[in-house]
């Protein structure tokens, strides 16, 4: 019983996270300004990282956790570079 509950919970969580990712993508497409798009990209990264954790739980492989770690770090670097770009129009001062 409790195991079919767990399966259902993970499936529902993954659907919710996919919806969350699509909301971020809609915001990224709609804008209206560049900072909105960068914010949406950052949220997309975090949602993708959380989704990878649920896939990891479902498949029982710790490799997904490592992928999540890398996504979190790359997302940080990307967003910082993009914010810098918005501020001065160039990445390196």
């Amino acid at each position, binding site marked *: 019983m409790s195991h079919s509950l767990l399966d259902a919970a993970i499936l529902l969580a993954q659907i919710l996270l996919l919806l*969350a990712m699509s909301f971020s993508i809609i915001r990224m497409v709609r804008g209206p300004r560049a900072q909105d798009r960068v914010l949406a990209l950052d949220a997309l990264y*975090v949602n993708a990282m959380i989704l990878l954790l649920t896939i990891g*739980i479902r498949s029982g492989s710790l490799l997904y956790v490592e992928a999540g770690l890398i996504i979190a770090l790359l997302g*940080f670097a990307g967003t910082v570079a993009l914010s810098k770009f918005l501020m001065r129009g160039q990445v390196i001062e």
Partner: protein
Amino acid sequence: MSHLDALPPWAAILVAVLVLLGALLAFVGSLGLLRLKNFYKRVHAPTLGTTLGTFFMLAASITCFSVLHDRPIFYEILIGVFLTLTTPITLMLLVRAALYRDREEGSADVPQAPPHE
């Protein structure tokens, strides 16, 4: 049929609840990104996913793998450490960039820069 059947019932229910809570918070955060009206309001929304949302999901992952492998596995905590260190930096930079751009355009919705700058 799957490896998750090896979990005892209490762990299965705990993991299910944690997974759902984490996903729900991330979902509400992204919904806010869509619903709120302007950039400075929207910037608050994704913090839900990066704080408690990630926390619940990490707790679920740690519980699941520790029980499955019968030893404490908690290196997922590193994701939490990196995320709590980096999120404030990205958000602050982004808000400052937005403020800079709005001030450049002379927008009336943001406070003006102090005169001596």
